[in-house]
């Protein structure tokens, strides 16, 4: 007997960890991973709710989210490549030409 809330709490925790990861990783690639982590948390929540409401819609959303995640990953990594071509560093903190 696992209540939905278990899953929700888990997804919440994962989401929070994702946020923390986002803030604390310097390497751009890992930052993307953090985003992926957050999206996973979202998926978990969706599935759990789908179960709670006994609807398929939730699952459909998960499906969309995964697609979007894939697309984002593709573009994001392309950007990363451009960046690392132009400036030999993947540390996000080095990227600060634009400020003030």
């Amino acid at each position, binding site marked *: 007997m696992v209540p939905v809330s278990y899953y929700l709490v888990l997804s919440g925790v994962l989401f929070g960890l994702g*946020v923390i990861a*986002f*803030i604390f990783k*310097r390497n751009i690639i890992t930052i993307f991973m953090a985003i992926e982590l957050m999206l996973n948390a979202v998926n978990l929540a969706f599935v759990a709710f789908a179960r709670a409401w006994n609807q398929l819609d939730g699952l459909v959303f998960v499906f969309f989210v995964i697609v979007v995640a894939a697309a984002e990953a593709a573009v994001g990594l392309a950007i990363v490549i451009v960046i690392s071509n132009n400036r030999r560093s993947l540390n*996000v*903190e080095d*990227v*600060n*030409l*634009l*400020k*003030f």
Partner: protein
Amino acid sequence: MFILHHLWIILLLPLAGAALNGVLGAKWPKAAVNAIGIGSVSLSFLCVLELIREFVHLGASQVPYFQKYFNWISAGRFNVDFALQVDQLTIVMLLVVTFVSLLVHIYSSGYMAHEGGYARFFSFMNLFVFFMLTLVLSTNLILMFVGWEGVGLCSYLLIGFWFLKDSAADAGKKAFITTRIGDFGFTVGILLAFWAFNSVDFGTIFQQVANRPAESAAGFGTLTTICLLLFAGAVGKSAQIPLYVWLPDAMEGPTPVSALIHAATMVTAGVYMVARMHPLFSRAPLAMFFVAAVGAATAFYSATIGVLQTDIKKVLAYSTVSQLGYMFLGCGVGAYAAGIFHLMTHAFFKGLLFLAAGSVIHAIGGEQDMRKMGGLRKKIPVTYWTMLLATLAIAGIPGFAGFFSKDEILEAARGGPHANVWLWLLGLVGAGITSFYMFRLIFLTFFGKPRYDEKTVHVHESPRNMTVPLMILAFFSVVGGWLAAPHLIGGTDYFEAFLHPVFASYGLPAAVSQQESLAGAASEAAGIAHSPGMELLHSVTGWPVIVAVLGLLLAWWFYIRKPGAAKRAKESLGGLYRLVWNKYYVDEIYGALIIRPLLWISTNVLWHGVDETLIDGAVNGTARVAREAGGQLREIQSGNARTYATWVVVGAVGFSILLFALWMVR
């Protein structure tokens, strides 16, 4: 009845003259300028004569005679018409003004012959005549104020006529501003009068006061307040204490100007105003006393200053101030007629004195310092004789014009309705001093050894167009007073009788009767039986005469008999001498107490302090604060993506907290 219906002609003529000369005159030959300048004035003089002819035919009921031309100001209840009026008082003033100014104009055509800006001079003079006549003819306070300010303007322009001289320009400015200070009171007086009587027309106002009792001498009733405020204007215009300071400086102007404006006419406007407003003044004893007191004080005070002046015109200036004091004394003690009488005679002899002085100055090439004159008696006889007559007149030697008018005033001061023995004393002593410094002037100028360099300066009598006016005026300085002569032998004073209707109407019943029995009262006060002979004897041996003669003798002693005496007196008096010599330091005191502080405060406190530091400081300060804040805010934009992410989280947390807080509150 032509002129009566078309009073405006009298005004228009000089105005037209002024306009013509002012706009076009510069390009015209002197002859044309003279023609217009003098012509216009003489024409209006003729008009006045014609007016008099018509006037005498008017029935008593038709006086004062009104003539309304157009509505000048109108807003709500406040309505001012451009309307003129004629009554006996007006007639007298008209006569004096036009007559004297005609003579002065003629005189000027000689005196100014060699000056630049000839046309300008005449245009200003004509303008002055216009405003002076407006002042005299006006039927309401506002129109009077127009003339009042207008003559002030002309005096400003004419004093500063030689504007290249800074002293002249300063004097002009000083004159205008000082009188303006007085006009402050005058204006407020008008305001008060309007709200008290809902009108500014003399007629309407007088109607309303007619059936009012006199106010108590103790408190500041409405009438008293109004009168005092109006009188403030008079003090400025007629150079009384404490605002007399501009008049001596005004001597910077050309001599004819001094004669016309600063002796004969403008400065007497104050007196005229007080006389004109007599219904109010008569009901404001306190104000009356104030007028009298100021008059007497000035009469005495400036006479003392006159004693030590060395500039011939300055002497005359102070004597003018002093004589004006007498006029106010007269009005102040209720003897309006006497005041006006003195105004008229003074116009003659003081005008003459100035013109003569001008002729002297003209004769010895612009020198004004009496210490550099002397012994001119032979060289310029006409000037000498005319001036001597005038001096006798002003000194109050019996038989001459000044004697009659001044005598009446002093009598009134002693025995009149508002008599006050102390003021009388002041006036009396003042009279003595007057005759002293006037004869001092004569002796220093015309007697003794020449003190000027006879090689460089060759003295010459003035041309005809200057001497003729002198003679005419001299004649009137002698006979001008005889109108009142019969009175001396208990007969009627024709001048006073002529003006009587003016001052009787609206007068306090009591006051009127006193007016009539004035002479009697005076003689009773003197405690002498009524018989023509005795009357005459008494009058010609009265106190005024005595002090006058004393003054004469003293002057003779000092400047003819023992020329060194003056110097000795100077040493012995020391401090007092210096005080008087420096005109009691009044100018200096004004400068130190009022002008300089005011300028200092305006500059440092108001302008730099409030304006620039405080207000602008605040304005620019806010701007700076905004930019500072901007500078701080942009710092957040550190360019570091992690920072940005953190901010996003801050937002997320913040708003979710906010939302849940509100949610739980519900």
